[in-house]
């Protein structure tokens, strides 16, 4: 391959392409925490989020994207979480959200 400077790159598609996404990590996460599937996306976690009050962090969005196999940036986003545990107190489905935050970081991080 020659290196030609085109001045632009190929934009990544915006669509969530389940076919080409690698769902291995996502499946691992769901296996360790099956209750995550019970999320009904009410947004209570995001609304009560201490970190979300100060920055763009959206817990519901991050874990939903991770479940779809969209890991890009999820680890970095997840690191904005302060683990304060408010979300766990409000989740109507009783999901172990703090455990989930740690699980996502563990699965997608470098350790």
């Amino acid at each position, binding site marked *: 391959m020659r290196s030609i400077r085109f001045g632009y790159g190929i934009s990544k598609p915006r669509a969530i392409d389940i076919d080409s996404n690698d769902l291995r990590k996502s499946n691992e996460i769901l296996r360790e925490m099956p209750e995550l599937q019970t999320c009904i996306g009410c947004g209570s976690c995001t609304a*009560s989020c*201490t970190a979300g009050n100060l920055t763009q962090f959206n817990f519901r969005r991050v874990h939903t994207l991770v479940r779809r196999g969209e890991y890009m940036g999820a680890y970095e986003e997840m690191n904005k979480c*302060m*683990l*304060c545990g*408010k979300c766990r*107190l409000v989740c109507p489905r009783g999901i*172990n959200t703090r*455990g989930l935050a740690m699980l996502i970081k563990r699965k997608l*991080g470098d350790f």
Partner: protein
Amino acid sequence: MTFFAPFTLPFIIGAAVMAAVLVAKYTLWTIHLPAEDKRLIRRNMFSAKSLAAVWEVVRESLLHVRIWRVNPMLGYMHSSLALGWFLLIAIGWIETVAYLGWGWVPLQGHVFFKYFMPVNGIAEHKAGFEFAMDLMLTVVLSGVALAWIKRMRSRLMGMRRTTRHVAFDRIALSALWFVFPLRYVAESITCAIYGGGSFLTGTTGKLLGEHLDSATLDALSEPAWWLYSIALGVFFVAMPFSRYMHIFTEIPLIFLRRYKLAPSVEEKSYDNFEVEACSRCGICIDPCQLQADLGIDDVQSVYFLRDRRYNMLKLATANNCLMCGRCQTQCPVGINLNTLRLNSRAKLRNIPNEGRYGYLAGLDRSTGEGRTGYFAGCMTTLTPRTLAAMNAIFEAAGDDVWRADSDGGVCCGRPLMLSGETAAARKMIDYNTGLFRRHGITRLVTSCPICLKVFREQYDLDGIEVLHHSEYICRMIESGRLHVDRSDELYTYHDPCELGRGCDIYDEPRRAIEAVGRLAEPEHNRRNSLCCGASLANTVIDDKQQRRIAQRMAAELEATGAGTIVTACPLCHKSIERVADCGTMDLAEVVAKNILRDKR
């Protein structure tokens, strides 16, 4: 006399291996101590602290006073084994000296004295020594018998559960169980042949002599001593790798602790002394609510320390703990179980990421002005009745308050700390410290015990007095700045783990409640109070499990007959409110409800 017989070899080898391993371990651990710890040792070594340590060694390593307090039956078992064995050795040594003078006698000479000198000439002391030795052997054998019973039927010993062990433990345990019965048999046979012995070995020896001819006895004697020696040898080799390492390790630990060494949020060499001082007695299993309420029985401190010691600790085990501290209050060795677990989590999880929490820079959402700062805590925003009550109390007390997080603050860092993300927690700590300093407060009140604990332990807040709101309220009432009306209402109080065991605050909340009503104590209270189950320290158990723990604990509170359950932690509040049929209130609400306004 050479004091040598081939059967002593297993003992000699075993003792040598044990001594070598012990010396190697302690030396390495000491060398690797951080400089600060070494400085502490040097400073305190030649002080009264060493004497105090000696006394504690006697009390704890020999007498096991703390275990006696928790469970007398277990106490007897431990001290009969420890003190009994110690005295067997000590008296045996004196006996040797008494007979042979101060000349050098090899180790096996002391231990197998009976074999080498079954008959000797100094008759005047003989009966006394024989009696003392038999008495001690009886004591030890009774301890061994109890140990057997404990293994078979732990409930008879007042324990619901006993510990499951690793292979080294089983080897050492089996050897230990046989050491004293074998000694008893060997000495009895020798007595049968040569006479002597007292009420135990002497009597048994006589019986044997009556029933067996001397040829049989001669044939049995040597194998019996062999077996005794082998049992000792096996035990000694296994010991440094088994839980019996605690026998010796407790001694340096007591000294180091007296020298003010303590584990911290980072693992360090000192932790080895604490980890290996665990005798795996299993006393920590019963108080654990994960065990009692949920039947989880492989994560308790004893298993945690075991796994950590053998390098097989899994994150799931380290994480599955409420860190309520109930086990720590009962640990006979006084191991800092919570801190060790915390630094294990830190080791397994902590990843210093410099890029994290960049968004904190320049943030300040505080409101109001005053010398008193109020940090409600994240969770408290979900208990607005507490917030409203605190507002009323501050107003009634006439305090101007600067509110650190009325519009959503930054977490105190304790939750991250509990999850082992120490470096990340440090960022919150630095941020909040800066915030408090910038606003020049002299007093910081928080409604969340979780925050309180980290403020007191990890924040550098010199010049700022950190108070939990229960302390603040109590002080305001007692200093006459807050006037309250006392009613006949009956309350019961739940000690939050982080407030009670965590920060040693038991009396202030009670005094505050008693200023406005009557107080009924639940079955478990103060240092023994139950955890609400919602602890931030545990990220493993699920919602249903949390609920079950809360139900058990709330049932106890409701059993007091009180109309209202009072607590002083938003997290406890939420988890009790969820399951209790009677009302749940924060301490602040109870007091605010009874403020007398006109008296001001």
